[in-house]
């Protein structure tokens, strides 16, 4: 990659994308491309049906060579998904990839002004002009290579954490598993059997634990927590605390596998008022201890606190847990009467649907209630479950010996703290929030940190295991390469003008700036590997020493000039 900013005057190419009808159906794309031709320093302008398609990218690469372009502007969709694609295209054509400017005329024009095509077109022209004016001042930037420490940290020693750790260790990298409890196993350590494979949970855990303990590459830290994690992809300094003692480790990649726990529905459905009202997890314990052997009838209630009652979400696995426990009860005591009160049964896929069919064939009753009128549990000496039975179209009542509440999974305590420590977000539901719901389900937006299992949201064990293997695979990308390319468009402090006030150090959310002594005075120094290019430090700087590369004052003012000229 060329690291030199071209010395010759700017020669800008503009590529305006139709995005099929997405942009072209509203914005007059050919007119925008024609307009761009007349802008200063523009030597080539065209429109493409899809600039991101192979022929669009070829069109850019060919134009760079043919017209000797030294800056490229693409007006299309969003840099969030497409900037890396266009940047690597101009790099292939021999340009420094930072000599590229993105103009978003989809979200900002054709989508928001769908009903006003003329105004949308006018706005697209203004935005393109702003992009072109900024592009004239773009500079080549250099990406630093960052070495990656060949070790990983897996936070959480449940099934997902162990599977992820084994996946990484298999490839020859050191792994530290940190588990808060005394033993490995997590939530699955509290259950009897795993469905739909019908395997003893204890054997799943012991198999995994044996492999983990046998691996010379895995160090297990039980009764331990991650006290601190500072750094960036490839280079985290991690403090693991066990009791009062701390150990310190250099870590290349981190996997969050902190899991989830069953919500205790205190104060709902008379839970806590009577020992015969249990959660599913409590039922499993009582079954293990033989405490339910004499019970003649059981009523299970689904969606407790979930799907809009207390939490907005569906906990995905409670239907399969309830049906599993119902089948286990029925298998042990065929005469037992088990009713499952539900709203929608969630048993997707092949194996689970089969379990659901088996349950019905065994005589387990499924009674549907509407979410608007959820069941009520009354402990009046006996137990009464009152609900609107949809298949009867009438109010109904059960008098079971035992009421079992299917309560949702909720994030583990400490998720918030961990999210702050690793600077990775939580969603509204309190579970960790991935980089992209569809295409990056196991990545965080922060490089070098990955997630899997129920820390990401409620799910069954099989899916958690697939995710754990997937997260290990993602973490192995920086680990196997031994290096990553750092972001180049970061903040920069000019030591000559810096007055060393430290304002930038205070406002930086990524702890990326240090105040250091140079020749008898203090100046700010940006750690480019930590900087996330948020730009917060720039307005905080009173002396004008701080610059956000690719968003310099002169570049931004040029854009403002372009837009204000239009207004006038």
């Amino acid at each position, binding site marked *: 990659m060329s690291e030199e900013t071209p010395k010759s005057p700017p020669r800008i190419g503009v590529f305006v994308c139709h995005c099929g*009808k*997405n942009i072209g*159906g509203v914005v007059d794309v050919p007119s925008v491309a024609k307009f761009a031709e007349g802008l200063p320093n523009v030597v080539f302008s065209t429109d493409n049906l*899809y600039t*991101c*398609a*192979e*022929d669009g*990218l*070829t069109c850019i690469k060919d134009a760079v060579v043919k017209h000797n372009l030294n800056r490229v502007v693409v007006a299309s*969709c969003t840099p969030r*998904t*497409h900037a890396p*694609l266009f940047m690597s295209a101009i790099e*292939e054509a021999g340009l420094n990839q930072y000599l590229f400017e993105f103009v978003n005329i989809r979200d900002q024009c054709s989508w928001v002004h769908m009903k006003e095509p003329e105004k949308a077109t006018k706005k697209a022209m203004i935005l393109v002009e702003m992009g072109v004016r900024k592009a004239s001042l773009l500079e080549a930037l250099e990406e630093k290579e960052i070495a990656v420490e060949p070790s990983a940290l897996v936070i959480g020693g449940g099934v997902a954490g162990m599977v992820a750790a084994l*996946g990484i260790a*298999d*490839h*020859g990298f050191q792994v530290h598993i940190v588990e808060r409890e005394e033993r490995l196993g997590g939530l699955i350590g509290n259950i009897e059997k795993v469905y739909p*494979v019908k*395997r003893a949970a204890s054997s799943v855990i012991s198999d*995994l634990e044996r492999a983990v303990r046998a691996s010379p590459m895995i160090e297990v830290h039980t009764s331990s927590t991650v006290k601190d994690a500072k750094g960036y992809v490839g280079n985290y300094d991690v403090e693991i605390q066990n009791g009062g003692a701390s150990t310190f480790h250099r870590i290349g990649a981190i996997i969050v596998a902190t899991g989830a726990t069953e919500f205790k529905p205190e104060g709902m459905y008379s839970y806590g008022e009577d020992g015969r009202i249990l959660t599913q997890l409590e039922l499993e314990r009582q079954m293990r201890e033989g405490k339910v052997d004499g019970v003649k009838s059981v009523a299970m209630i689904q969606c407790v606190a979930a799907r*809009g009652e207390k939490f*907005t*979400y*569906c906990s*995905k696995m409670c239907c399969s847990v309830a049906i599993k426990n119902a089948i286990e009860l029925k298998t042990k005591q065929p005469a037992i009467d088990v009713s499952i009160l539900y709203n*929608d049964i*969630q048993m*997707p*896929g*092949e*194996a*689970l*649907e*089969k379990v659901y*069919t088996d349950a019905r064939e065994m005589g387990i009753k499924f009674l*549907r209630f509407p979410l608007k009128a959820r069941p009520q549990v009354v402990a009046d000496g006996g137990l009464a479950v009152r609900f609107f039975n*949809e298949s009867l*179209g009438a109010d109904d009542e059960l008098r079971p010996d035992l009421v079992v509440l299917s309560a949702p999974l909720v994030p583990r305590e400490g998720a918030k703290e961990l999210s702050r420590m690793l600077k990775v977000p939580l969603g509204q539901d309190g579970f960790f929030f991935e980089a992209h*719901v*569809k*295409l*990056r389900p*196991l990545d965080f937006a922060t490089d070098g940190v990955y997630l899997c299992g129920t820390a*990401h949201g409620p799910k069954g*064990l*099989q*899916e958690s*295991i*697939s995710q754990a*293997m*997937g*997260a*290990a*695979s*993602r973490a*192995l*990308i920086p680990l*196997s390469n031994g290096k990553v390319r750092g972001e180049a468009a970061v903040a920069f402090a000019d030591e000559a003008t810096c007055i060393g006030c430290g304002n930038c150090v205070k406002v930086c959310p990524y702890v990326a700036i240090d105040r250091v002594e140079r020749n008898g005075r203090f100046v700010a120094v940006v750690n480019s590997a930590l900087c996330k290019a948020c730009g917060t430090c720039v307005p905080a700087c009173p002396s004008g020493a701080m610059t956000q590369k690719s968003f310099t004052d002169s570049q931004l003012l040029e854009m403002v000039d372009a837009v204000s000229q239009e207004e006038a």
Partner: protein
Amino acid sequence: MADSVLVIGGGIAGIQAALNLADKGIHTYIVEKLPTIGGHMALLDKTFPTNDCSICILAPKLAECSNHDLIDILAYSEVLSVEGKEGAFKVKIKRKARYIDEEKCTGCEDCARSCPIKVSNEYNLGLNMRKAIYIPFPQSVPRIATIDASVCMHFTKGKCGVCKIKCGAGAVDYDQEDEIVELEVGSIIAASGFEVFDPKEMTEYGYGVYKDVVTSMEFERILCASGPTAGRITRPSDGKTPDRIVFVQCVGSRDPKHGRPYCSSVCCMHATKEAMLVREHDEHVETCILYTDLRAAGKGFFEYAERGKKDYGIKYIRAKPGRIVRDESSGELEVWYEDTATLKVSRMKAGMVVLATALVPSRSTAKLAETLGVELDEYGFFRSPDPLLRPVDTTRPGVFATGYCESPKDIPESVAQAGAAALRASRVVAGVTA
């Protein structure tokens, strides 16, 4: 020890597995039977639960595969045989003749514009026409024309030749022959995806009889700006915008009698998304979803369906229709159903009906399994000897399966599981045994 991996299937699962491997430094082949990679995701308009434009988020992945130094795409190709064992497979692949010199074709489509033959366009599920020489869709990778020799007049009647004349690059080569290539790979990942169950046999729904009864994948193309109606919601029979669209769930799914007993996993959310998009395109069109259980269990899915009800006015009725008939005088469809919440038999007029057809392993999967020497389960999905701890393993060491062909799942689950397959495969080429 061969240090490459072969991925069979160029849908999102295969693409993601290949990128995961290649990004780790492992050379990977993608074999795709169609002329382009992209799979079903390339045919979707938007994706739930974010309503991201599907091709917009997929196209960069396609281009990444195409530009990756460590990925070789063999599109329009089929696996003929697999010999050897884990760590050292020898694979024979047929690269079907496109009758186009791949080096010369610029993807300009001058050939397609001049081609006189029009045939049903499978990329719009037969809702419009394509030419005998064609590029499936603008983001196709590789972006190379293909001659469909089964309909091209040069091959069927020995005349024409217009495309050869029009091609400025001199890329058309009628004499091209299928080519057999042999690859040595350490591991193989099958990602052969799904196809839509044909609902014709469920005659009560009138699919194939009434034009305005369509499958949910067909309707996806009708919603899509790059589809046959340019995203206008018009019905196939007369081009009118329907007053009401009724979505029927579990057509062939959860139905041991006619179709498959399993739940296809994605259709409830798929219908919810399509109904939302209908309302976004045209707020005057009513939407109603007739469902069995609303399977909205994934992350953010229940909230999405709630938004569908509250913000988009989608009506959800728990019912399975008994039959669909057409009122010949008005041309409108009538859906007869029993509402299981009110226990009443009712009928509803519908301008269009969208059938959420079961998704089944793609037709090529059975043959592929035979070639790979692995077992399938009773419904034709790849079988793992340990579905819990080794979900992507097959019955043959070194061969893995991921995505919908492993079991029904949505895009994020396919992407996550593709990583799992990449992990298992990279372990093989790294020489880890057991």
